[in-house]
């Protein structure tokens, strides 16, 4: 339901009025449904969420979906045209520079309003990096419905939510060490028995066969 007040610029300006010091950024959505989202900075996320819940124009009292997304490190290649002197002649040369864009983990919140029956307002909070800087404020004190979903994001992505009442693994067992939904997760190798492999399963089965030959296991 896209009304005018749900346009991201409107929400941005209103939240900036209500929560001083917050830094918001609009992320434009390329698909036809035009569900644009707002990136909130980590320090003011809790205040911004409380504001959206209590503000009489918005009353976003229902968090519908909390998702984790993994954006690994990417390299961006830029082609820059510069004028340089080569062999005495000034020419235009193209130089490609590679910039590394650091990876981060993200939590996306889809907010709706049961009272005013509008939505969605989409908030995104990003971590600093994919290693130790993976702390985000928990929005469970604002919306109880985020409790289990944040636990799931902790289990599968490794984002630690500060302020969560009970942060432990929910879908995998407690002794499990990895974060399976990350893009660089390596699956355990139990592809010994594969009668009709093809495509990527064939690759996995071949790799297992090589490993068995080299380690001389069972």
């Amino acid at each position, binding site marked *: 339901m896209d009304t005018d007040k749900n346009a991201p610029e409107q929400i941005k300006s209103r939240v900036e009025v209500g929560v001083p010091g917050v830094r918001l950024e609009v992320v434009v959505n390329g698909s036809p449904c035009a569900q644009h989202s707002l990136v909130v900075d980590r320090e003011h996320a809790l205040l911004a969420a409380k504001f959206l819940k209590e503000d009489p124009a918005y009353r976003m009292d229902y968090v519908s979906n909390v998702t984790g997304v993994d954006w690994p490190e990417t390299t961006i290649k830029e082609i820059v045209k510069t004028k340089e002197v080569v062999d005495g002649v000034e020419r235009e040369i193209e130089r490609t520079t590679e910039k590394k864009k650091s990876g981060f983990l993200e939590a996306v919140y889809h907010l709706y309003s049961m009272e005013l029956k509008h939505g969605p307002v989409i908030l995104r909070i990003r971590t600093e990096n994919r290693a130790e800087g993976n702390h985000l404020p928990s929005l469970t004190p604002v919306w109880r419905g985020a409790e289990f979903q944040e636990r799931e994001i902790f289990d599968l992505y490794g984002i630690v939510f500060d302020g969560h009442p009970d942060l432990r693994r929910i*879908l995998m067992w407690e*002794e*499990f*060490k990895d974060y*399976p939904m990350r893009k660089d997760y390596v*699956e*355990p190798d*139990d592809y010994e028995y594969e009668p009709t492999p093809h495509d990527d*399963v064939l690759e996995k089965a071949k790799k297992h*066969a090589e490993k068995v030959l080299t380690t001389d296991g069972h």
Partner: protein
Amino acid sequence: MDEGLRSELSKQGIFTTTLEDLYNWGRKNSIWPLGFGLACCAIEMIATSMARYDLARFGAEVFRPSPRQADLMIVAGTVTKKMAPQVVRLYNQMPEPKYVIAMGACAISGGPFKQGYNVLKGIDRYIPVDIHIPGCPPRPEALLHALMTLQQKIDEQVLTGERRPRHLNADVPGEFPVPEYGEHDLVPTNNPDVWQPPALVRED
């Protein structure tokens, strides 16, 4: 025994049989399953016990809640690595003679979820399975056919000699080690006494 004598006696109301036949007949017509549905196949198992595809006529309508009172475990649904120790523990708690039916593609080999990191690729990695039912989910008629095949299998068991079943053979263990949760996977990943990956011949 002479067939003519047998039919004469049966006309008089005297029925003769062997101990083996009687023992097997009693066991096969009163198999009590353990109420153990894991996923979607469990719904088809419930539908099989309902009025349309009646499981009661095979003597198997009483789904026992406790493993100590059951003789058949129908593993219906995907066995995940988190659930696998519980399945093996339940199997160990069942008294002999006990049978396992692996119902559905997931219980046989992981099924459509074979690429999952948490999916156990077949329950026969840890416990011996008697009947496999393919399908996703198998129709209730397929489960009935599997039950009838199991009944046939029980009927053909002999009481003494080399081919006697596990529960009459003191040398073969009836309990299997329970896997534990490791850091990345279950420990051990399979039970080598029960399951060996078959030797594969690849063309390339």
